[in-house]
């Protein structure tokens, strides 16, 4: 039998964590329960984070948005500010799981699972998102890409939780784009995904570019060579094809049941070509 503690405030959470240091946290349980059924973990005590208001909600200021780690994917999808400021995240959330999974699963859970296939990660990587980590002793902030250490590994320390994600507004007129390749249109783990944030000047030449690939390495991958290659160039098929070559060189995919490494590598490059279409019509 598993014991489940349900703190309803931060003080209750900190005391629960102090008294049960071996307890395992969970929010929506959509990753945890799958692992538990598969016998990968069998925690005697669980602490549920879903009733702590301080972990919920989206707030905005001049710099950007602060997304509570306890927000469900559906809440984020329905949030007007997220839709307006972070279309790349919205696009990714639309591909995540299915309506029931989006209703249960949380942003915090997706990040703490630290899967290279986690769909919210590539968008947050291109946005240079920061995470807020809280513990009984205080707060610290890390860049998301420093928070994620490897598959299933994060910089979370014992007694620490992920409280929120902070994202700055992208420069006005930037193109935000996300694409996930799965074997079906819902409930599909990504074979490869690409998030892009590209800013062009009025002449259509790239001023700034950020790309992050999912599922083609142990963590989400950014490829500075690709980003540099595009500076000053138009988003044409030929320029993007050159960048695709660089991308294929940089990614480090593996074979698994869903796809082989060659497919992932090829498509990781191919996905850049989509920007020749979407890139010309920036989303607002």
């Amino acid at each position, binding site marked *: 039998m598993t014991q489940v503690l349900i703190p309803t405030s931060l003080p209750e959470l900190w005391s629960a964590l102090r008294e049960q240091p071996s307890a395992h946290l969970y929010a929506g349980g959509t990753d945890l329960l799958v692992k538990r059924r598969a016998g990968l973990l069998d925690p005697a005590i669980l602490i549920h984070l879903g009733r702590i208001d301080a972990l919920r909600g989206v707030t905005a200021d001049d710099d950007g948005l602060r997304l509570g780690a306890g927000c469900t994917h559906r809440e984020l999808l329905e949030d007007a500010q997220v839709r307006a400021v972070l279309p790349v995240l919205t696009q990714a959330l639309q591909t995540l799981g299915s309506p029931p999974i989006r209703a249960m699963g949380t942003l915090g859970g997706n990040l703490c699972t630290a899967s290279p296939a986690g769909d919210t990660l590539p968008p947050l990587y291109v946005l240079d998102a920061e995470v807020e980590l809280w513990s009984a002793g205080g707060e610290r902030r890390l860049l998301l890409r420093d928070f994620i250490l490897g598959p299933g590994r994060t910089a979370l320390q014992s007694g620490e939780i992920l409280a929120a994600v902070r994202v700055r507004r992208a420069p006005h007129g930037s193109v935000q784009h996300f694409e996930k*390749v799965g*074997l079906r249109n819902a409930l599909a783990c990504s074979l490869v995904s690409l998030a892009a944030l590209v800013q062009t000047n009025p002449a259509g030449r790239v001023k700034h570019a950020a790309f992050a690939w999912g599922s083609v390495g142990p963590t989400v991958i950014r490829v500075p060579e690709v980003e540099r290659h595009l500076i000053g160039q138009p988003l044409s098929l030929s320029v993007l094809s050159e960048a695709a070559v660089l991308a294929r060189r940089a990614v480090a995919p593996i074979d698994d049941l869903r*796809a082989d490494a060659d497919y992932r590598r090829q498509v990781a490059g191919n996905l850049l070509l989509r920007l020749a279409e979407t890139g010309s019509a920036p989303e607002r």
Partner: protein
Amino acid sequence: MTERSARPELGPPQSPMLEIGASVPRADAWAKVIGAEHYAIDHYPLGLLWAGARRAGLAHARLRGVAIEAARALPGVVAVLTAADVPGTNRQGIVHKDQPVLVEDHVRHWGDPVALVLAEDRETLRRALALVEPDLEPLPGVFDIAAALRPDAPTLHPGGNVLLEAEISTGDTASAWDVCAAIVEGTFDLPFQDHGFLETQNGVAQVEPDGILTLTVSTQAPFRDRFEIAHALGLDPLRIRVISPYLGGAFGGKDGATVQCLLALAALHVGGRPVKMVWEREECMIAGYKRHAARLCYRLGALTNGTLHALDCQLYFDTGAYAHLGGEVMELGLEHAGGPYRIAHTRMRGWAVYTNNPIGGAMRGFGVCQASFGFERMLDRLAAALGRDRLDLRRQNALRRGDRNAAGVTLVHSTGLAACLETLSRHPLWLERDRWPDQAPPLKRRGVGVAAVFNAMGYGRGLPDAAIAKIALTPDGRFRVDSAVSDMGQGNASAFAQIAGQILCQRADAIELVQPDTARALPSGSSSAGRTTYSYGNALVRACEALRAKLLHRASLLLMVDEPSGLALLPGRVRHLPTGRDLPLARLAAMLPETDRVSIEQFVMPVSQEVPDTGKAFVIGFPHVLFAYAAHLAYVEIDTLTGKLEVCRYLAVTDGGRVLNPRNFDQQIQGAVAQGIGYALCEELRLQEGRILNPDFARYLLPTSLDVPDIASLAVATVEDTGPFGMKGIGEVGINGPLPAIASAVEAALGRCPSQSPLEPRRLVAEVAAPSASDDAPR
């Protein structure tokens, strides 16, 4: 919560008049929607024990022994049984009895059961199963068809690795090729497919105080189950009672023993306590039956004018570790290998071979689904080679009533393929087909594909396809149908209610449906082969007509009229029309003894009267005479960057004879097409040395609602003279179309199509990358 109280009270739908041809709601809809329906899996008798099988976990091995002491010592474990505890033959199988209930010494696939554990609760069962240790000596395995046929291959069964080899031939293929103007060839590979039903294999069993062994099982064949259990365990089949509630899906996967023999064995060892067994999803995938993987080698030739002239093909089916219905599946594949076309000269050879893969068995489309990929790919290639329109070539060669089919059988029953193709050819989706590729967005390619398919109905010659229907007037003046063929979701029970309502002129609430129970109903075969509504329905028509005649006659006595001619059955009553006098049915029932209120009638499906001089290897099942036909059309879009295939629009035109219930008809077609789209796009058992790498729904991918487009279903309602109200079975034909229609569309889009299914992104992206051949793309 104020919101909720504002809603109108929900309640069952009004009881409609049951009429043939109307889309009356399904009889099972309400109970299923509100969760009140009790499937087998919902049965939890008091004091039950849990049974579970320990699976071998190796695909091929000698079983030297099973260490059961540790499991037996676990508190809460009631018994641990091995092959030594099995009385009887310890062999199950529908036709060939080659599958042990518990393995004695030869493990032939990963999921072979080596021990049966009985425990007080599920958790203890799980722990005990892990403590059972089979002592296995690995043997070299056979993991594909080619390996199985090698002369030096390890042999899996005493008779060798070929379960059945057969040939169906007509005309003279030796000389026919010389006159062909175009000859096309191809080799095609298809994977194992899982049924993907929601309710996994399960049941409860108990030896009753009177010694009768009673099982409530999720099964397609309750009557046959008794004999399988009896044979395997050395029991008297008539002391076994099987109850088959509505099934949460089956598609062929619950035809034949799944939990039955294990449950019965368990029940024999626990002194009358009930035993429950439920396979978890992974076990369902590992131990359950599958659609056979297949390899097809085709050669098809046509004359200059497009007339199909010669066919030579070899069909290989991987039946896995045991026969199940492997020979019969191969028979159907072979009988359909020429497609729904006239071909004068055919030589069709087939092999069903044993391997150490999961067990191939019955699944919707039963061999035909595989063959359809082969013959329809050939038709497309032939059209390209002859420069002909794909639909036109099919129409030219389509079987018509009176023709001999490619197996040499004269079609004397309804044959609506030409009408299906005609309907498709006039449909806007076909007429506007050129607009589809023209409007492809950047980086996408689009194509339109067609396929013509068919599917035999019934068991075929040699195994009487019979049903015995039973209907009774109840004391309260309603009618009870004792269905004898399971309803696995296809809606046959609802059709029975509709048939009874039509003939007896009753509303839905006057018809009570009892699901199969061998103690109440009469043997009527399995729920399979597109025969269920046809065969039982025919028997029910007769039973209802006889009952109507009898009731009117009895009513004439009660109403004191000279003869029953002025009497009519109306909802709940009999009316004497000349005088307007009514006799409530409850009153009539009160007058009659129970034996007089029952009507029982039998029907046997017609069989071919021809004796084709071929197919001799098939003792049963060849040939068939009744077929459903269909023409399918698919619009697809392929992403050139990812190889992702999207089925955007779909049309299925079906000849299933007269339509008893248009909504149920469309649902059957749509369900079959959706399952066929899964077969075409993503469903594939991934195997490594006989082990399933994706035994769950996270990795074995079924299409979701977002992967299946709206499916337009049109009926070409021919009349099948021998069918109840002119119908034929359509449970299977719809699944045969999607793979070939989608492949045809892919070829139209890319200029070529992989010859291996499913048509996954990794396969298509390779085709996209190859140099364009769009000039010879089909039109």
